[in-house]
C-alpha cells in the first residue's frame, strides 16, 4: 500500500503538466479568434494604434454600424443569401443522397454495380479540376449570378451517397422485413422505417453539408457578381477590397460570418466530430 502514496505527487504533477500543455494549446487556437472579436469592437483610430491596444479603447460599435448601413456592401443581404443557400443545399443533399443511397444499399437492379462504381470513382477526382467545365454548364443554364449556382451543383458530390449507403448497410434488416410483411411498399419502408432509424447519420450529413456550403469560397467568387447576389465568403473578399486596412469593419464582417457556424458547432459538435472521424475510418 506504499506505492499509491509515493506515486500520488508524481501523478498530480503529471496532471498539472498535461493541463498546462492543453491550456497553452487552447490559447493558440483561441487568441486569434478572440482578437477578431476584440478588433471588431474598436474604432478606426483605435485599431490603427501601434502597438495595438489589448482591449478596445473606447469600446465601439463602429465596425458593425458600417457593415449594417453601407449599401455598397450589403452584409445583411449576404448573410441571408448564405443562410438560404446553405439551408436549401443541405436539404437537397439530404433528399437526393438518402434516396439514392437507399436504392444502392437495399435494392437489386440492373446497373447497380456500374452506377455505384461511377459515383465512388468521382470521389477521387479533385473537384477543383472540374471548375472550368462546370462554369460552362451553369452558364448555359443561365444560373450565373443566381442563388441556384451555389445551391445545386455541389449536391452532385458523391460523399453524401457514399456516407449514407454505409450507414444504411449497417442497419438491421429485420425492421424492414417486418414492414414488408405488413404490406408496406419500398417508399413507405424508406420513409417510415429507414429514415427515422437514420436520424443521427442524416443530422451529421445535414450539418456537414451546411458548413461546406456556408464556407465555400472558390466557386462563388467566380459565379456570383452583383453585390446583392453574393454569399458571405465572396462578400468578405469584397469587404476587404473596399475597406483595406479599416480592420474593425473587416473583422465585424468576419465575426458575422463566424457566429452561425460556431453556434452550429457548439450545438452539433457530436455530429460534426462523428462525421469527420467516420469519414476517416471509411478509408
Amino acid at each position: 500500500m506504499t506505492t499509491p502514496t509515493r506515486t500520488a505527487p508524481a501523478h498530480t504533477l503529471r496532471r498539472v503538466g498535461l493541463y498546462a500543455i492543453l491550456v497553452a494549446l487552447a490559447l493558440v487556437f483561441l487568441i486569434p479568434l478572440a482578437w477578431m472579436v476584440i478588433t471588431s469592437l474598436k474604432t478606426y483610430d483605435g485599431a490603427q494604434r501601434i502597438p495595438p491596444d489589448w482591449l478596445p479603447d473606447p469600446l465601439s460599435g463602429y465596425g458593425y454600424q458600417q457593415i449594417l448601413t453601407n449599401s455598397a456592401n450589403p452584409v445583411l443581404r449576404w448573410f441571408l443569401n448564405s443562410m438560404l443557400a446553405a439551408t436549401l443545399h443541405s436539404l437537397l443533399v439530404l433528399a437526393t443522397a438518402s434516396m439514392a443511397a437507399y436504392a444502392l444499399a437495399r435494392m437489386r437492379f440492373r446497373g447497380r454495380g456500374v452506377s455505384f462504381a461511377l459515383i465512388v470513382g468521382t470521389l477521387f477526382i479533385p473537384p477543383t479540376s472540374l471548375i472550368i467545365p462546370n462554369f460552362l454548364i451553369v452558364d448555359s443554364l443561365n444560373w450565373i449570378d443566381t442563388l441556384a449556382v451555389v445551391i445545386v451543383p455541389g449536391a452532385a458530390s458523391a460523399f453524401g451517397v457514399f456516407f449514407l449507403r454505409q450507414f444504411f448497410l449497417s442497419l438491421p434488416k429485420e425492421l424492414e422485413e417486418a414492414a414488408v410483411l405488413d404490406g408496406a411498399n419500398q417508399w413507405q419502408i424508406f420513409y417510415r422505417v429507414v429514415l427515422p432509424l437514420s436520424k443521427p447519420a442524416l443530422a451529421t450529413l445535414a450539418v456537414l453539408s451546411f458548413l461546406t456550403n456556408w464556407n465555400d469560397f472558390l466557386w462563388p467568387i467566380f459565379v456570383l457578381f452583383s453585390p446583392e447576389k453574393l454569399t458571405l465568403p465572396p462578400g468578405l473578399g469584397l469587404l476587404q477590397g473596399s475597406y483595406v486596412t479599416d480592420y474593425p469593419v473587416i473583422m465585424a464582417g468576419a465575426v458575422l460570418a463566424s457566429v452561425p457556424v460556431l453556434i452550429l458547432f457548439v450545438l452539433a459538435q457530436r455530429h460534426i466530430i462523428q462525421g469527420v472521424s467516420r469519414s476517416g475510418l471509411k478509408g
Partner: protein
Amino acid sequence: MADVIEVGAARGDAPPPAASAARRGAKSANRVGRATPYLFLAPYLVLFTVFGLLPIVLGLYLSVHQWDFQLPNRPFVGLDNYKELFSSDSAVFGDWWQSVRATAIFTVVSVPLLVVVPLGLALLLNRSFPGRTFFRAVYFAPYVLGVAVIGLLWRFLLDANLGLVNRVLGAVGLPSDTPWVTDVPWAWISLVGVTVWWTSGFNAVIYLAGLQDIAPELYEAAKVDGASTWERFRHVTLPGLRPVLLFVMTTTVLASANVFGQSFLITQGAPGTETRTVVWYIVEQGLRNNDAGRAAAMSIVFALMLAVVSLANFRLFRYRED
C-alpha cells in the same frame, strides 16, 4: 475504400431478404418493384450526371479546343494546349510552372506538419481526463470557419505594422518588423502556419477515432513485456494507425495541393505572383482571361499529377507494411 466495395459486392451475391419477400408478395408490389430502384436513384443521378460526369467529358473536350468565352469561333487545336504547358517558348509556360512550383513548395512543407502536429494533438487528447471533450472542441473550432474568415483574420494578424503576431514577437524581444505576407520565405511560413492552425484539429479528430480502435489489450501486453512509452508508441500505436495514417496522408496531400484561399487572401500572391497556386492560376486563366481551353488542359494535367502523387503515396505505405 477497397473493403467497402467488397462488402457491397458480397451483399449483392444474395438478394436482400426485403426484395425476395416482396417478390413473394402481391403482384402489384412486384410490378412497382421494377421501376422503384431507378425512381429512387433518379433525382441524384440527374445532379450527378450534369455536374459530376458531364464536366469530366466537357473538360476533355475543352482542352483540345481554343475556347474563348467571348469569341464565337472555337477551333479544334489538338494537343496544342497541352504542348504549350511543356514548351518553354509559350505564353503560359513561365506562369504555369511558377504556380506548380508554388503549390509544390506549399505541399511539401505543409503535409509533414499536418500529419505530425495533429497526431501529437490526438495522442494528448487520447486519455481520460476531465475537460477532454472541451479541449477537443477548442482545437477543432478553427476548422468550422471558412477560408474567407481565416484569410481575412490572418491577413490582419500578420500585418507587419498593425498585426498581433509582430506585436507579440516584439514583446518577447524578437524582431517585430517581419514582412509576413509580402516577402519570401516569410510568406511561405505564414501560409503553412495558418493552414496548420486552421486544419490540425480536423486531422486530429480522424487520428483520435483510429487510436480508439487499437485494442487496449495490445498496450497491456506491451506493458507486461516492459515496453517503454516510446516503444509502445513505436510498436503498438504506429502500426495500429497505419490505415488511418495513409488516409490522413492522402487526403492532406490532396487538400494542400488544392490550396487557393489562403494565398488568394493572405499573401495575395505576393511577392509578385510567387505564391500564386495552381488552382488560382487555372481559374484566373479560365474565368478571368476567358481562356477555357488552356485552363481545361491545365486542370487535366494537374489532376494527373495529383493521381501520380496519390499512387506513389499508396505504394510507399504498402511496401513498408510488407
